[in-house]
């Protein structure tokens, strides 16, 4: 009988312990895979999330908050700035394109964003819509791909928005009946659905910028925008525009790439903490393997004595236990990689809808090579201790009580 068959029979004989060990390794590996997928998704989303708009101008406050709300549709805006700022920025020589954005309302959790339709060709080039056309008049909306899928609305459908941002529904309570009635009476008509853009725009509802002024009854002189997305002609141009508008009262101009880099650094710190927690999980999984094989060592001491008595070599003995540890690790690793990616695939849509982080469930990461190598190395280290103890067992041990 070859060593593999003995190894297999031994694993089957103590299948509960074997399965538990595989489970511990699989859970750890799958969590690692999910963490990597999330980190990759966030980094990719952050890197692609602002297109050619190197500058963003908004109300004074947190730079990260302004960028998060403008490009990633997350969190609250820093406030509003007068419409005149947009007019002034648009006339700057150093500016290639500038688009005002109004925000503040939502429909079933998806933000309603007021934006010039010319934003789309500048940001995404010439793309065909999935359905219908881009909005053009007050009250017309074009939905992002994920928002349309999640809401189940079609071209021609109508709905009313609600005041407040996602996660800030409590603000609605503070507004009076008049405000609520205004939202209820303002009907949006769906005229199109955007193609999948793989950015936060997929989960937004776009309409003309003047919707906010219409809904909230703003007079000509009191009109405001939430942010201005600026595509400068050059980096030098970006610098001069930033310096100029930073000096305006209650206005800030932010380098988008710098704010995104700050955000990524924050995420990196978070993922380092998570990695520390995961490392503890890895040590627990390795301990589980070590305990399982140590129990096997004590259970099989007599068996090994017998094998030595009937002439099986020490290397045969060593390889059966080392092989068992490696097979358990490899099985857990394979299951973990599969489950991790499957879980990533399963949660990608709801996660994107909820947070804007887009996971590519079955995208392989270079880091998985390290996960595989590390898991196998740890499996070998955990197996080697009991395996070497068994290696030292001689035929006499069969007769010792």
């Amino acid at each position, binding site marked *: 009988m070859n060593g593999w*068959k*003995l190894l297999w*029979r031994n694993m089957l004989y103590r299948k509960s312990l074997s399965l538990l060990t595989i489970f511990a390794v699989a859970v750890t590996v799958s969590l690692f895979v999910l963490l990597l997928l999330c980190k990759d998704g966030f980094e990719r989303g952050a890197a692609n999330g602002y297109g050619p708009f190197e500058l963003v101008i908004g109300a004074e406050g947190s730079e990260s908050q302004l960028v998060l709300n403008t490009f990633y549709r997350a969190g609250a805006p820093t406030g509003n700035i007068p419409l005149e700022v947009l007019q002034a920025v648009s006339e700057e020589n150093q500016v290639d394109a500038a688009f005002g954005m109004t925000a503040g309302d939502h429909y079933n959790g998806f933000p309603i964003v007021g934006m010039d339709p010319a934003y789309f060709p500048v940001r995404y080039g010439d793309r065909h819509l999935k359905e219908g056309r881009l909005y053009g008049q007050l009250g017309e909306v074009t939905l992002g791909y994920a928002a349309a899928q999640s809401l189940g609305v079609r071209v021609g459908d109508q709905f009313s928005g609600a005041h407040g941002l996602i996660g800030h529904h409590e603000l609605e309570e503070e507004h009076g009946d008049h405000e609520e009635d205004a939202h209820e009476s303002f009907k949006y008509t769906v005229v199109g659905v955007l193609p999948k853009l793989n950015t936060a725009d997929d989960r937004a509802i776009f309409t003309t910028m003047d919707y906010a002024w219409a809904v909230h009854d703003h007079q000509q002189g009191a009109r405001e925008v939430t942010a201005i997305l600026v595509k400068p002609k050059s980096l030098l141009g970006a610098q001069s525009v930033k310096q100029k508008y930073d000096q305006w009262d209650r206005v800030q101009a932010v380098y988008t790439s710098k704010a995104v880099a700050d955000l990524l650094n924050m995420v990196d710190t978070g993922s380092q903490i998570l990695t520390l927690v995961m490392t503890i999980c890895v040590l627990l999984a390795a301990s589980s393997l070590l305990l399982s094989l140590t129990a096997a060592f004590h259970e099989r001491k007599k068996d090994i004595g017998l094998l030595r008595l009937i002439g*099986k070599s020490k290397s045969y003995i060593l390889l059966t236990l080392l092989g068992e540890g490696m097979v358990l690790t490899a099985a857990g690793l394979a299951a973990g990689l599969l489950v991790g990616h499957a879980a990533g695939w399963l949660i990608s849509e709801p996660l994107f809808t909820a947070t804007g982080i887009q996971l590519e469930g079955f995208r392989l990461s270079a880091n998985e090579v390290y996960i595989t190598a590390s898991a196998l190395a740890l499996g070998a280290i955990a197996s080697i201790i009991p395996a070497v103890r068994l290696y030292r067992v001689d035929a006499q041990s069969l*007769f010792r009580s």
Partner: protein
Amino acid sequence: MIRIEQLEKSYRLQGQTKLILQIPYWSVAEGERIALLGPSGSGKSTLLHLIGGVLPVDRGELQVCGSKVSGMNEAERDAFRAANIGYIFQDFHLIPALTARQNVEMVLGGPADRRSRMQQLKEWFSRVGLAEQMDHLPSQLSRGQQQRVAIVRALINRPPLILADEPTGSLDWETGGLVMKLLLDLCEQEGLTLLAVTHDLYHARLFPKTVPISDMNRLLQSADGLAVAAGRGER
């Protein structure tokens, strides 16, 4: 088959070396079936393990199956044992994760092709009355059946010498008798030499030849037992 001259074996116990076995001369001819008798602690199992190459010889000469076992290192004794000895134990020592057939297959040499091996296994299991239990795990077999599997494992390669250490020690009296008879019959049919250690006089009487360990162990000849012998043997 076995030839012993001036053989000595000591153990270290609690920091002291105790002489356990001192045999001036003893021999066993090929094909003999001998029951080695003696009380617990008289050194009969130690003698068996020396002959089987499990324990190293301290002093003297031991020849088994034409090989000089005394003087062999551990690896040489392992190779000698695998080629020449079939072992049967009081506690059977079947591997619990393997079926009866797989336990025997662990030692099976001989024909390489699967069909011939299967034929050989079936034939041996039929001879011990376990043709229907070949694929049972040891836990699914009675103690008597487990010992019969162990007998098949010891005999299937037809090693020239079978060593049995209290083979009926874990069985009830009646089952023990049946198992001992089966072992004797199979060894006779195969022409194998059998040396079995037992303290059960009834089972020993089934053997053509019985040898009390006191007949050969000089330490037991001049006093009233091992306790005295061990004391005198202290170095």
